[in-house]
């Protein structure tokens, strides 16, 4: 399967990773190589096979719906690149 530069650009956009135009052909080539490798999966007969959800057969544990934590605002914000007045700060989103 061959990936063109337009597809590579679209995937980069979806992944929110900026890729300069001149880097797209190499990226498309990498994708093509990796997807070519993955193509082998097409040979396997998967008729009536369930896709795996959990590798160990287990029921998810339930816990009571109660508050177990809180009042950690300073700690939550301590690693933020930009935090102001108790909030994460980001570039303007709404005009």
């Amino acid at each position: 399967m061959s990936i063109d530069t337009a597809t590579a650009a679209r995937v980069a956009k979806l992944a929110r990773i900026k890729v300069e135009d001149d880097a797209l052909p190499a990226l498309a080539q990498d994708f093509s190589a990796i997807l070519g490798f993955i193509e082998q999966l097409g040979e396997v007969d998967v008729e009536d096979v369930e896709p795996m959800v959990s590798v160990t057969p287990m029921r998810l544990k339930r816990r009571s719906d109660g508050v177990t934590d809180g009042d950690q605002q300073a700690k939550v914000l301590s690693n933020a690149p930009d935090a102001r007045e108790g909030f994460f700060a980001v570039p303007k989103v709404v005009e």
Partner: protein
Amino acid sequence: MAELAQMKIAEARDALRAGEVTSAELTEACLQAIEGAGALNAFVHHTPEIARDQAKAADARIKAGDAPAMCGIPLGIKDLFCTRGVPSQAASNILSGFTPEYESTVSGQLFDAGAVMLGKLNMDEFAMGSSNETSCYGNAINPWRRGNDDTALTPGGSSGGSASAVAADLCLGATGTDTGGSIRQPAAFAGITGIKPTYGRCSRWGIVAFASSLDQAGPMTKDVRDAAIMLQAMCGHDPRDSTSADLAVPDFEAALTGDVRGKTIGIPREYRMEGMPDEIEALWADGRRMLEDAGAKIVDISLPHTKYALPAYYVIAPAEASSNLARYDGVRYGRRATLAQGDGITEMYEKTRAEGFGAEVQRRVMVGTYVLSAGFYDAYYNRARKVRTLIKRDFEEVFAQGIDAILTPATPSSAFELGRTVEDPVEMYLNDVFTVTVNLAGLPGIAVPAGTDKHGLPLGLQLIGRPWEEGDLLNTAYALEQAAGFVAKPGKWW
């Protein structure tokens, strides 16, 4: 002093309890060894003050007679584990400056048991790699060399710093994580022991996520007994990880009798790869003979879907990674790119992730995005999950036939030179050909050093066990270790 850092965990534990050595002395010996081993680039964040404080506390506990097995044992911690107040970057620039406010469950359990943290260990960025060459800290170097040839070799990956540090006696043991072989392949390349337990044995809470359905933590140690002791301290149910198993943790060390009489060991024919080096073939045959001589019954088995494990992995792991790594957005932690006048939030995301992620991580995030995107989800992601079901079924069928463990090579080669495969992502992926099936099936797997190649580099064998039977698996590994008698150490050049 240097001899102290060469101790095994079991020896150090006994000496500490007997009052023949203190944790403070062991810790100083390791700190000194680390100081002199900058050339290996194994430790990337040094925490001597924490280590000295922990050693002091451990010595007090030992004196008071309250000393769990890991009390006072100096360890290295892979950079993937969040450690409170200590940089935890997953070897990525996108997490530069990140110092967690919390401790991962596994490292927390080790420290609660009295273990000492010497520092954080090098690794591939976000654990994506097989040679430690994708790290933002630069390459970790294998202490092993080809005889007198000074070519720098990879310690493997992703837990390359852990393997290098343990092999070079910079610490008594190290934590690793394994998503497709990241404990077992570096252990094999560095002549040490590494076990990936059954999926769910170790809590994943506080470990930076790569592919959540495959990731497991495990110990990397100087021998099988040490692996049993350290694994014991790392395991256990954690309500903060919904996939953590609520099962009792047996005494793994007590399982080490070395008696494998009556055990049935399977040799899977599909692991005999085209173009596999003769040395690997010979090592595998040696391992088979050793276990047979020890009284095990050897049976040829078939795991027919083996061939499809790597391609399935390279759909599932990137898919999960693309989802897990979506959280690195330049808002909550780590690095944010410098923005230009007028840049909005989308530019912030795109520039931050382009600057912060290395090439391999970007590649995998984008491949994952692609296989999950509309129109391809069924063809790639769902198909890979179905193939994963078949791979697991292969193992279930041989276990149902009475197989106790499966013997395979750990890696398709010995440690290779740095820079060799970095240009070709698919060739690099082939490193995990023998290990990745185990993650896809959620099984325990262990790599044990069993011989050397023609250059004197270590080679490892892998044993794969039944789910939750780590004790039995460790015992088979112990028998193999005793028969192989691998005691070689890298000559010190650093």
